[in-house]
């Protein structure tokens, strides 16, 4: 019974998601005019593409997003890795607790 | 021409995946996935040539270096002596 309920939920979520992405998004491959609203060709990505080589001096624009425009995210990412490492080391720390 | 070769590679991948799905034992599947990985490496290289950008080839190089790690780990597990020795 529980399994049937879960299966139904999964199917419902899947149908909902597929319906959403196939109707509400612009067609695949139409990047610069993605925004709701009037300013087409003015999306964030397009402006970054135009300005990044001069502003950051990196040939790889993804890099200039990763450590330039969104560098703080990447700091968070490094912290996530640190957290996971500390967690794993904590779980497998030496046996024999002092009680 | 490159794209047609890619389609043939894709068909070969499909056939390999058939063995990966059927294979009665673990080594069978590992062999099939190994062949698939190598075929995908050549597909990556051909795509890099098709897009005319030599820097794309780094991706294929990564797989050329690291593809055998997983196989090695599985082989060590199947030998039954533990991974760490």
């Amino acid at each position, binding site marked *: 019974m529980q399994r049937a309920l879960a299966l139904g939920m999964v199917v419902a979520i899947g149908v909902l998601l597929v319906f959403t992405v196939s109707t509400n998004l612009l067609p695949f491959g139409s990047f610069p005019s993605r925004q709701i609203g009037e300013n087409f060709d003015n999306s964030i990505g397009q402006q970054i593409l135009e300005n990044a080589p001069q502003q950051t001096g*990196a*040939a790889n624009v993804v890099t200039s997003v990763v450590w*330039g425009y969104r560098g703080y995210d*990447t700091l968070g990412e490094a912290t996530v890795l640190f957290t*996971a*490492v500390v967690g794993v080391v904590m779980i497998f720390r030496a046996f024999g607790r002092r009680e | 021409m490159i794209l047609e070769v890619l389609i043939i590679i894709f068909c070969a991948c499909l056939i390999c995946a058939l063995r990966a799905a059927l294979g009665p034992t673990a080594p069978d599947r590992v062999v099939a996935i190994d062949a698939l990985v190598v075929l995908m490496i050549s597909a990556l290289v051909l795509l890099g040539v098709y897009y005319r950008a030599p820097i794309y080839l780094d991706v294929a190089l990564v797989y050329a*270096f690291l593809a055998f790690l997983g196989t090695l780990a599985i082989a060590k597990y199947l030998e039954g002596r533990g*991974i760490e020795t």
Partner: protein
Amino acid sequence: MAGMTVIVRTIARLLFPFTFLFGAYIVLHGHLTPGGGFPGGVIIAASVVMLLLAYGIERAQKRMGLLQAEVLESIGGVAIVVLGLFGLLLGAFFLQNVFPLGDLGQLFSAGNLPLLYLGVGIKVTAGIILIFYAMLFAFREEKE
């Protein structure tokens, strides 16, 4: 005899420096070609894992021990924060790019981005190796 057969050991021995070099290449060219700190660090860590699989954990630990990895990870994290603080001290904001930008496409370009990638590379290398060591050391004393 620990580890795999002589074939695996020889090839791992041969491949280790080149994999390490390739990882360093990926890290240092992150601002010019695809790649960056994380994949490069993972590749360097994978080169150590390769030795680990071929020779066993004791010999891999001679290359990089547990304590070294822990300290290196801290150093990587501190390096990133300190580089960010440079931007705060010399410029106006945290993580601001205050170093000279250089010419587009050269190795010495893009200000502090390659340095940040270097910090991430060190951190990721140490972190992944530490995860592997921790998981492999677990419950060893139970077995013996």
